[in-house]
């Protein structure tokens, strides 16, 4: 009698398991969604506001108190901005190229170099690895503002002033990315790596073929960190030549025009955001469960 009952219960449980979330209550789900929607409105507000500001004609921009939505949306601000940009004596596309260049190269290099380091620190035990990790985490806690001068001295000694090395190479060793990657790789099942080792894979094969595909969410997130940092970096300390200046710097130069550039300023703050937001959307939509542990049974 009871045996039948237990069997029935197990079957019921297994059936429930086929649904996505077996142990969730409907009421709970409802409140979660409600809460998320309310918070989302608060969070998205400044973004909505700034996009609308960029679409406002000047008379609306100067209104006090400002309206949230543009009443007569126009693209005048953007058009004005392009006129102003067209007047710069270095072609505007050059600034865009510069920024895209340092962002792509810096991010790619950071991804490879920091992941390699993170991989050995997370998954191997060799003398000095713990110390190295402790030092790198501790270094995160030193405020960047006072290290600027020593940094400048070092870059100057290397002869990298007014070159892109000054921005790209330090970005390779961004500690945040390294630390995140290392923490993430720690979650990888060791069985997976050992199995590959037994099959005769060397460290490089292991890294490229096994580890990296399995930590895809981590490196997509790392790309976001890195792109955001590099894209918004005006690099005003290291770059002097006009033709090497970066987009953010050039756009800030436009804003230096003061009150007459209010409308263009609103447009600039939207334009600067476009690329980080796009990278963000692209990589976040790619973050999916990886097969790392599925299919592995201890």
């Amino acid at each position, binding site marked *: 009698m009871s045996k039948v009952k237990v069997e029935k219960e197990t079957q019921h449980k297994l059936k429930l398991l086929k649904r996505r979330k*077996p142990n969730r*209550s409907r009421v709970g789900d409802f409140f979660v969604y409600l809460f998320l929607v309310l918070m989302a409105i608060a969070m*998205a507000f400044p973004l909505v506001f700034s996009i609308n500001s960029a679409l406002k004609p000047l008379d609306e921009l100067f209104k006090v108190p400002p309206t949230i939505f543009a009443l007569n949306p126009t693209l005048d601000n953007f058009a004005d901005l392009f006129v102003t940009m067209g007047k710069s004596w270095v072609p505007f596309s050059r600034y865009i190229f510069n920024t895209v260049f340092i962002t792509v190269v810096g991010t790619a290099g950071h991804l490879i170099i920091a992941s390699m380091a993170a991989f050995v620190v997370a998954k191997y035990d060799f003398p000095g690895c713990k110390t190295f990790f402790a030092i790198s985490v501790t270094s995160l806690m030193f405020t960047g503002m006072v290290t600027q001068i020593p940094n400048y001295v070092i870059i100057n000694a290397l002869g990298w002033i007014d070159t892109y090395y000054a921005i790209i190479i330090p970005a390779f060793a961004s500690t945040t990315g390294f630390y995140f990657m290392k923490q993430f790789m720690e979650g990888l099942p060791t069985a997976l790596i050992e199995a590959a080792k037994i099959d005769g894979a060397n460290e490089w094969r292991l890294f490229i073929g096994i580890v990296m595909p399995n930590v895809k969410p*981590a490196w997509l997130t790392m790309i976001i960190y890195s792109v955001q940092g590099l894209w918004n970096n005006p690099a005003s300390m290291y770059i002097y030549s006009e033709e090497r200046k970066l987009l953010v710097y050039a756009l800030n130069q436009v804003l230096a025009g003061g009150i007459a550039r209010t409308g263009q300023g609103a447009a600039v*703050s939207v334009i600067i*955001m476009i690329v980080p937001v796009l990278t*963000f959307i692209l990589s*976040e939509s790619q973050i999916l469960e*990886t097969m790392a542990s599925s299919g592995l049974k201890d």
Partner: protein
Amino acid sequence: MKEYLKKYWTLRKHNFKVGLKKAKRSKMCYLFLLPYAVIFFMFVILPVISSIFLSFTYYNVLETPRFIGLDNYFNLILQDDIFITGVKNTLMIAIITGPLGYLASFLFAWLINELPRWLRTIAIVVFYAPSIAGTLINIFSTVIFRGDQYGWINGFLIEAGFIDAPILWLSNPKYMLWICMIVILWQSLGTGFLAFVASLQNVDRAYYEAGYIDGIKNRWQELWWITLPNMKPTLMFGAVMTITNSFGVSAIPMALCGYPSTDYAARTIVTHLYDYGITRFEMGYASAIATILFFMMILCNKAIQSLIRRVGT
């Protein structure tokens, strides 16, 4: 005693030999680490060490540093009242916004994780928007917390009859710090949040199924017994990021409350550092501030890491 020392030395020698052998065996590891380590040493460690060295000098950026021992530290702790105000404010901000921001980052990441894929992407973008749109915080000072009656909060409170005259939210020392905290919290879903989002995806689904069979009844039990223990490394990462952000607060108070702020009510340690380092060119003094902040963060980090180790037990 002698005996003991001798034994100690033999042990050390032995350990060293074992270490050397291990190091020889793991050549490949060092090779992997090398590029990162070299760059890291040159652009992170070296500047930090030289900054700590500068904190023992008088250095005005243009002249060569002059060694003055611990004078900077004595001045900071014994004579600089504004620095003490800064420390108080920073601790206040860190103690309130740090844990709240950390919990919020995790909570949202966790709730979002269960949404269908396309909705999840939208939700992540929306919640992360304040961190992307970092430059937009001026709408808080020009629209929401505006000091005259056109400010939204003032307008609302006057309409509702709570106050009869507008409040200068951002220049009245009574409110400044709290307003800053609200904005900091609003912006707190940053690096840590993204890390949580990514690592929630990597928790093995088999654990959830096993947990369900073993009788886990609701989402809270599942969170505590399965999700959290599986995310420990990322939880630690998030904690470190929260510490560096909440102790390093300076941009938001400076943008909202002005610089310097009324009565120094919104001064933080890093604002103080900015004042001395960038405005007055007293880099030695500024480095001393940074070094003190550094040790504060390290202590805090030690405490929090030991807390997180207990999660899920």
